[in-house]
């Protein structure tokens, strides 16, 4: 175990101690942080195992050739459509989209398509969209969703191509 990892574990233990102490001496701010932490952990830990098992199944069952053909650099507009379809049912938030992006990259999806997927997962998650329609109104939601599409499409292509020229690789 390297020093960097040790430091992180010590920091985490200190955080836990701080929270416990806050509850012991009734330190309100510390208690709020602790309750926030528990609330966040609960919602995230309920999603993450499912997300990672799906990624695992994806890695063993979906061939590299398939993803390369459908989402690779030669896939054209189809790759972006697939990214959009994948983004819809993504649950959670960006923190789930990042590991999925990593898995897609391993299978040969192009950078621009992956960047587009990340943005699309931020904007076009179906459950969120439904909540937005019902709470913020059809007009507001439609403008937001429609204006976003060309913006994230063009920016993903430009940014992806720029990174490709620099021989950038997604970390694994």
């Amino acid at each position, binding site marked *: 175990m390297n020093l960097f990892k040790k430091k992180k574990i010590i920091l*985490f233990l200190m955080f836990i101690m701080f929270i416990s102490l806050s509850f012991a001496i009734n330190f309100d701010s510390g208690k709020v942080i602790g309750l926030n*932490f528990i609330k966040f952990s609960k919602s995230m830990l309920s999603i993450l195992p499912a997300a990672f098992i799906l990624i695992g199944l994806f890695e*063993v*069952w979906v061939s590299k050739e398939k993803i390369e053909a459908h989402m690779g650099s030669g896939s054209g507009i189809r790759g972006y459509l697939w990214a959009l379809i994948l983004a819809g049912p993504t649950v959670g938030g960006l923190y789930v989209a*990042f590991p999925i992006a*990593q898995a897609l990259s391993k299978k040969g999806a192009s950078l621009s398509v992956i960047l587009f997927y990340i943005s699309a997962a931020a904007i076009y998650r179906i459950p*969120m969209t439904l909540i937005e329609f019902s709470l913020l109104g059809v007009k507001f939601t439609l403008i937001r969703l429609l*204006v976003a599409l060309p913006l994230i499409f063009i920016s993903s292509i430009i940014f992806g191509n720029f990174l490709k020229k620099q021989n950038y690789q*997604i*970390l694994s």
Partner: protein
Amino acid sequence: MILLYSFLLIILFISFLVDRQKTKKAIKIAWKGFMKLLPPFLQMLIIASIVLLFVSPSMISMVLGNNYGGLSILVGAIVGSIVLIPGFIAYPLTAISLSNGASYMASAAFVTTLMMVGFVTFPIEKKVFGTKVTIIRNVISFFIAIIIALVVGVFFGEIF
């Protein structure tokens, strides 16, 4: 959530019936991936819970509701970039802010950056994209959110 996990169990079961070895490998990959990203996830959770102390939902509602004119877009975008709150809290919060007089453009900036720009998710994104690309991606997303908010502002007659 129950739906998600029942679906997952069914496909895991099918996968297991078709190929045991592959399914075992999939679970191994899942476990390894989870453990690898667990430290940055914990880091993210700690940052998020501290940030939420300083920028509480009631404060967000107040800030969005204040009338800063054109600046309100920027304020909404900055607040949305900093905090991480799940959608089922964020949307009702935004709806309440709107009925309390928040502008549609500030709300659009807030909702969009909330989902697209992640100060708090930085530790995870860094592990996937590296520091430099993470920063550029977030900056681009921030500007996209501003453009979206401006268009919303125009359509709701809040600017021009």
